[in-house]
């Protein structure tokens, strides 16, 4: 190597790559539908951002948690950039309730009972594929919010803080994501299962 940057600094980043590189990469891949190239870019951006901000790291959370938090922001930024900003604004301001409810607030189409055990579904690859396809159809911000809440189990407060959204917008987004996913799964999975049984 020609000349190393102030060696302690560089060594810090090297350690991060060694200790957390794989984890961060996996984390990014799973949230980007396996887009490894973007995942690698975002891991790089994360490490650089972390290096710039490392004096802010208080040690109150584990280093991995801190790095993962930065990566989450990078993923969100990426999602935001990918979808047009006005489309994101639509997520909150446009009320798609008319898709599901009449003006009197009644269901257009009645939800039906889903008879399946969560355990059996979680292990069913076909169901998993349908669920993924349904999630792909969600607007980006809804998808992110849903992902953080249901898959990562983040608290509502943390998600609002990380995404800079108000609690009421958060609940609107979750409600819409659930309405859409429920509808999509009824159409492509549970309805089909009923037909076949």
């Amino acid at each position, binding site marked *: *190597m020609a*000349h*190393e*940057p102030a060696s302690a*600094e*560089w060594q810090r*980043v*090297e350690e991060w*790559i060694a200790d957390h*590189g*794989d*984890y961060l*990469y*996996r*984390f990014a*891949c*799973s*949230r980007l539908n396996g887009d490894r190239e973007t995942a*690698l870019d975002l*891991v*790089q951006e994360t*490490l*650089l951002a972390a*290096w710039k901000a490392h004096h802010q790291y208080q040690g109150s959370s584990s280093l991995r948690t801190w790095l993962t938090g930065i990566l989450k922001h990078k993923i969100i930024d990426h999602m935001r950039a990918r979808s047009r900003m006005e489309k994101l604004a639509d997520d909150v301001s446009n009320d798609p*309730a008319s898709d*599901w*409810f009449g003006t*009197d*607030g*009644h*269901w257009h189409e*009645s*939800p*039906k*009972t*889903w008879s*399946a055990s*969560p355990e059996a*579904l*979680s292990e069913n690859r076909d*169901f998993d594929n349908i*669920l993924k396809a349904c999630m792909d159809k969600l607007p980006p911000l809804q998808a992110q919010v849903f992902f953080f*809440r*249901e*898959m*990562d*189990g983040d608290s*509502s407060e943390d998600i609002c803080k990380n995404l800079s959204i108000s*609690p009421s917008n*958060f*609940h609107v987004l*979750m*409600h819409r994501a*659930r*309405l859409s*996913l*429920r509808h999509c*799964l*009824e159409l492509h999975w549970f309805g089909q299962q009923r037909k076949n049984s």
Partner: protein
Amino acid sequence: MYTCKQASRIASDALDRKLTWYEWLNLKLHLAICAMCRNFEQNIHLLASTVKKPDDTAAVTLSADDREQLRKNIQSILENK
């Protein structure tokens, strides 16, 4: 009395926050007479218990090339800052 639209929203909120006593009561009253919303509630609960944390421990790892690329990129950026 809640409409189905309102009840579905409160049923969804219940998964993410603590309801006020008033909301809880109104939701229960609505669900008592509305099979559609009972089904909705059942559906989103099943959805919540089915979506699982992606396996962050799975066998996806940085390849040696990726790792080297990452090191090089970061090093060159740090050097040129």
